[in-house]
């Protein structure tokens, strides 16, 4: 891998009560690239994302993010360090409006304390304006302004996926983790979502790690593909190289015995 790796995983192993989910996985994600994690169901892709942003603590291995090395991430530290993510099953705040969801994504950008905000003193009003402006930019970028005041739980699925991306993007992350951003979408919606992911990557230089099952999308979108099978890494490289890797083909299509 290139020297400018933003994220490096070294020999990560994770098990749940003795069941191995991930064994000895190492790979690196270069700054500014789009990296796809692929593999059959149960290969450990989502678990790996959860390790990267600290939802799960691996039993073994090292994580290096933005030059800092640690045994395991914590969700709060990951967020502070600039890692944002979306979830496979939409994890939006369903009772809140689209705008409030996006604003919540920016909660770490705030300096005024809660009492200051409650009494509307000091930094609070000016900060409210700046937060709103930044949130509006995200809404405009993902073209969801018309639904700004809609309650998220009442929006259709495709839009909810986009709102979740907006919430993650609002944090101005260095690393964006997307867990199946296109699951359950039709071809048109997939094309639109791919466009958004590319735009985010190009315009903000955000590094993206995404999980996706649609191989066509993966091959056209990503600079780098990591293939997992049964918690092991079976392929790692540019899309074309991975496509020809016999182990990857075996994992997806099975082998002749």
């Amino acid at each position, binding site marked *: 891998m290139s020297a400018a790796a933003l994220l490096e995983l070294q020999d990560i192993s994770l098990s749940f009560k003795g069941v191995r989910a991930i064994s000895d996985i190492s790979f690196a994600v270069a700054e500014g690239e789009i990296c796809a994690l692929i593999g059959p169901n149960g290969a450990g892709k989502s678990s790996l994302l959860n390790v990267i942003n600290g*939802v799960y603590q691996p039993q073994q291995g090292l994580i290096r993010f933005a030059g800092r090395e640690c045994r395991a991430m914590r969700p*709060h530290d990951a967020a502070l360090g600039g890692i944002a993510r979306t979830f496979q099953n939409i994890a939006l*705040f369903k*009772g809140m409006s689209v705008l409030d969801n996006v604003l*919540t994504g920016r909660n770490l950008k705030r300096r005024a304390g*809660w009492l200051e*905000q409650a009494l509307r003193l000091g930094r609070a009003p000016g900060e*409210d*304006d700046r937060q*709103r402006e930044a949130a509006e930019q995200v809404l405009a970028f993902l073209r969801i302004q018309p639904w700004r005041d809609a309650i998220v739980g009442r929006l259709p699925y495709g839009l909810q996926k986009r709102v979740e991306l907006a919430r993650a993007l609002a944090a101005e992350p260095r690393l964006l983790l997307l867990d199946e951003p296109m699951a359950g979408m039709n071809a048109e919606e997939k094309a639109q979502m791919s466009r958004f992911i590319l735009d985010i990557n190009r315009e903000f230089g955000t590094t993206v790690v995404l999980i996706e099952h649609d191989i066509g999308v993966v091959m056209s979108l990503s600079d780098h593909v990591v293939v997992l099978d049964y918690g092991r890494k079976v392929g790692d490289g540019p899309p074309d190289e991975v496509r020809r890797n016999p182990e990857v083909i075996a994992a997806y299509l099975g082998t002749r015995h």
Partner: protein
Amino acid sequence: MLYREAGQFSVRYADDRRFFRLRQGRLGLAALLTFAFLGVPLLGNDYWFSAILIPFLVLSLAGLGLNLLTGYAGQLSLGSAAFMAVGAFATYNFELRLPGLPLLASIVLGGLSAALVAVLFGLPSLRIKGFYLIVSTLAAQFFVQWALTRFGWFSNYNSSGVITAPPLQVAGLDFSSPAGRYLLTLGVVSALFWLGANLARSELGRNWMAVRDMDTAAAVIGIPLLKTKLLAFAISGFFLGVAGALWAFTYLGTVEPHGFDLSRSFQILFIIIIGGLGSILGNFLGAAFIVLFPLLLSNLATLLPAGFIDAGQLENLQKMVFGVLIILFLIKEPEGLARLWQRFRERARLWPLRY
């Protein structure tokens, strides 16, 4: 047609942040406050102040306290009355033991004491959720009542544990008449509602709702779960504590620990369920329902021919009718009166058209 919003644009983000985006709403609130502060004291009589308006205001405030915790932050609690009791007894003791302390300062200190106790019983909330958390707050309910009865110090060794209101004076003015007690209550409640509404719309309010709706996602976004939950308990405890002090001193005058028993906690829970979880207005609507409806029922009963209902059964019948109505209402509108009002307003915007 009165509710026209044509021509009223938000041109700055600050316009959008107002409580009422429409001029009609702001004028309405100003008119309501003017009437409540100036009109009602002139027009109302002692019965209205003492039996209806003061308990309505205090219960609204208590509802707000619980709503911040349960409706916004999603932490179920059955300890509301305990935190009210702490507020009342702490205020009493601050007045008693620190002579010369202004009444409002004692009430604030009483609220802070309740906040402290609420945080203590909120500590398990990081580990236990939902119905199981009720048990922890229920413990608060029983423990506080027990402690206040067991240790005479809290009630200054009164033989039956009763505490009596200190002189109700603020800035040299006497507020002990019914109208005065109403004004004092109204002032405190208005100020705290302003604070509560601001909180609910601030970053903290959003964090509360985030924790309520999806706590793993909230943690991933960088919301500190423990701090957010404990702040909910503290702030809720503060509001409930102040409500308790008002309940004891501006409404009842004298109160014993038994006045803050479990049924009071349930009453406050009903207020927010009927009014609407996660709504500021809902607290007023729910409290009005709880205070006014029994009165209405008993007035209706007097219209019935004499002897139709045995006087002894009247109270039981009232409770039954009240219970049935609550159930019916919750089936028709599970999201509470505030939602009903919201739907009416949406309708009124378009009236006489339907879309």
